[in-house]
């Protein structure tokens, strides 16, 4: 197989909107309930039931419009997409077709430190279908309608992707943005974000090849595997003189292969037409602009602020903005004016994250310790305790939710900053060290570290390193 093939991919991302109720009915939009317990007659497609639009979904769509640089259309139309499937009781999905609510957006993704603009053709509102369970019984499928009518925003990109890395970066940026603006909970495992990948391969400077669509993936790992497998498959077909048949594929997670979906063997004809039960949506400038201030800070804006104003290292800033919950935890820590952002950041991505990871927790699980962590960081900033001591206290705080000031007192860990006391220790440390003192005076800086360590050891880690440092320099430079 030669390497001279180019991948071309476009994505359809289905984001479930984080609302209380469904798109066209007032039943709960909730994951994980008992089967068929969040359903009303509208969702179940009972005759004579009429859909009523949820304005909350329109607001979330508008929010997304601002965040992804879309044109927000003042006029959009709901249409029926007709097909039969057991988990679609209406016999059609209400979606938008010719007149979507959002068109022509874009975001920038970063790939190996190079920015790339990904153009997004459109985003439209539609209903999710129910859930079918195929694997409990050899003869039957089981249908749960709880998901029917859950609001989805389908975000359709242009075919601007040329590698699996770009695809992954785009989806994670998109997910991050949607979570920041509180439009989607981003929980991929629960299917809140599902991705279809349209993929074709071609030689450089040739026309686009025939594409296949890999449907309905909800993990980064599987998306990458599916892209790798499908691109290899297409290249092999073409290199052996074959032709790609346009097809809808499923990625089989157990075999790591793609295969055609049986239910899509016949080309569908969805016969879209405007849903006579729903009137077109007219949005006024005022309605649209009212949503703008609710977006809050986007991850990219936070990143810039962290790097430029807070002077954090880019890598550290990126880790913190990677999840909304991290960023908000961090900003809560530095709400204390005496804590420097750099200190808070290094404790967060360092000891706090390792604790969480080790205990298999999430940041929200330690949320109620945040005031105590602030207290602890303040004690470090004021020199009351050393970083070394703080590490031990942090674990106590996180594990047993103890008061740091109490712990410091109880354990007698208060940092020694007293000049006279430390001077004695420094003098002791310099005793019988003529050789090393000579070394320092002839320019070896490393010796200073040795002395600081020696003094710290003598204070059992409680000595203030800054004061020790100053005292040592004073004495050594005599």
């Amino acid at each position, binding site marked *: 197989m030669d390497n001279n093939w180019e991948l071309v991919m476009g994505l359809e991302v289905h984001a479930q909107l984080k*609302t*209380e*109720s469904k798109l066209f*009915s*007032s*039943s*709960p939009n909730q994951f994980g309930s*008992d*089967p*068929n*317990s*969040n*359903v*009303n*007659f509208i969702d*179940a497609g009972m005759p004579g039931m009429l859909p*009523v*639009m*949820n*304005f*909350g*979904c*329109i607001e979330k769509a508008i929010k997304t419009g601002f965040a992804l640089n879309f044109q927000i259309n003042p006029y959009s*139309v709901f249409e029926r997409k*007709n097909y*039969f*499937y*057991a988990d679609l009781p209406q016999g059609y999905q209400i979606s938008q077709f010719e*007149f979507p609510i959002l068109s022509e957006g874009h975001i920038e993704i970063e790939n190996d430190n190079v920015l790339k603009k990904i153009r997004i053709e459109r985003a439209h509102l539609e209903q999710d279908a129910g859930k*079918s*369970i*195929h694997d409990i*019984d*050899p*003869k*039957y*499928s*089981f*249908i*749960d*309608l709880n998901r029917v009518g859950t609001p989805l925003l389908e975000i359709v990109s242009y075919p601007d992707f040329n590698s699996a890395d770009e695809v992954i970066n785009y989806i994670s940026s998109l997910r991050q943005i949607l979570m920041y603006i509180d439009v989607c909970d981003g929980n991929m495992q629960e299917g809140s974000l599902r991705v279809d990948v349209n993929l074709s391969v071609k030689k450089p400077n040739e026309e686009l090849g025939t594409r296949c669509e890999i449907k309905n993936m909800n993990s980064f790992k599987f998306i990458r595997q599916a892209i790798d497998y499908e691109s290899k498959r297409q290249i092999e077909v073409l290199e052996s003189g074959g032709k790609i048949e346009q097809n809808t594929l*499923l990625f089989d997670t157990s075999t790591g292969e793609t295969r055609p*979906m*049986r*239910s899509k063997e*016949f080309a569908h*004809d969805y*016969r879209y037409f*405007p849903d*006579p039960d*729903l*009137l*077109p*949506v*007219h949005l006024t400038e005022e309605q649209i602009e009212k949503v703008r201030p609710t977006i809050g800070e986007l991850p990219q804006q936070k990143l810039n602020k962290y790097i430029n104003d807070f002077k954090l290292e880019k890598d550290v800033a990126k880790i913190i903005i990677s999840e909304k919950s991290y960023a908000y935890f961090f900003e809560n820590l530095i709400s204390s004016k005496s804590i420097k952002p750099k200190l808070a950041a290094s404790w967060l991505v360092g000891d706090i994250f390792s604790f969480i990871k080790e205990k298999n927790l999430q940041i929200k699980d330690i949320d109620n310790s945040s005031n105590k962590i602030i207290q602890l960081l303040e004690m470090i900033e004021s020199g009351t305790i050393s970083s070394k001591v703080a590490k031990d206290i942090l674990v106590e705080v996180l594990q047993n939710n103890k008061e740091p000031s109490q712990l410091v007192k109880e354990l007698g860990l208060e940092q020694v900053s007293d000049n006279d006391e430390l001077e004695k220790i420094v003098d002791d440390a310099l005793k019988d060290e003529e050789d090393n003192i000579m070394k320092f005076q002839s320019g070896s800086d490393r010796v200073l570290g040795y002395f600081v360590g020696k003094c710290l050891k003598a204070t059992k880690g409680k000595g203030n390193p800054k004061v020790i440092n100053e005292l040592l320099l004073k004495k050594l430079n005599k």
Partner: protein
Amino acid sequence: MSDINIKKVSYLAKLALNDDKAALYEKSLSEIIEWVDNLKKIDTEGVKPLHNITEKNQNMRNDEVLKKNSTEEILSNAPEKAQNFFRVPKVVE
């Protein structure tokens, strides 16, 4: 006569038609389409499509949970059910 592919139409509508019925429906559907095709004679140059006859705005509700029906009600018309699921002939993917 308009071109009606009755096989495709009945497939999409999930209707099983025998040959006699297929011929009958093919004929009557073609007539309906011919009749509706008369509309094409009207000059609509420069006229925007109308998506709903009333041209009113969509009524909307606030995002609140108001009404759900009980699982018993939802399943009451199901020909087959099991453990609060609808049970249907196997749909294979």
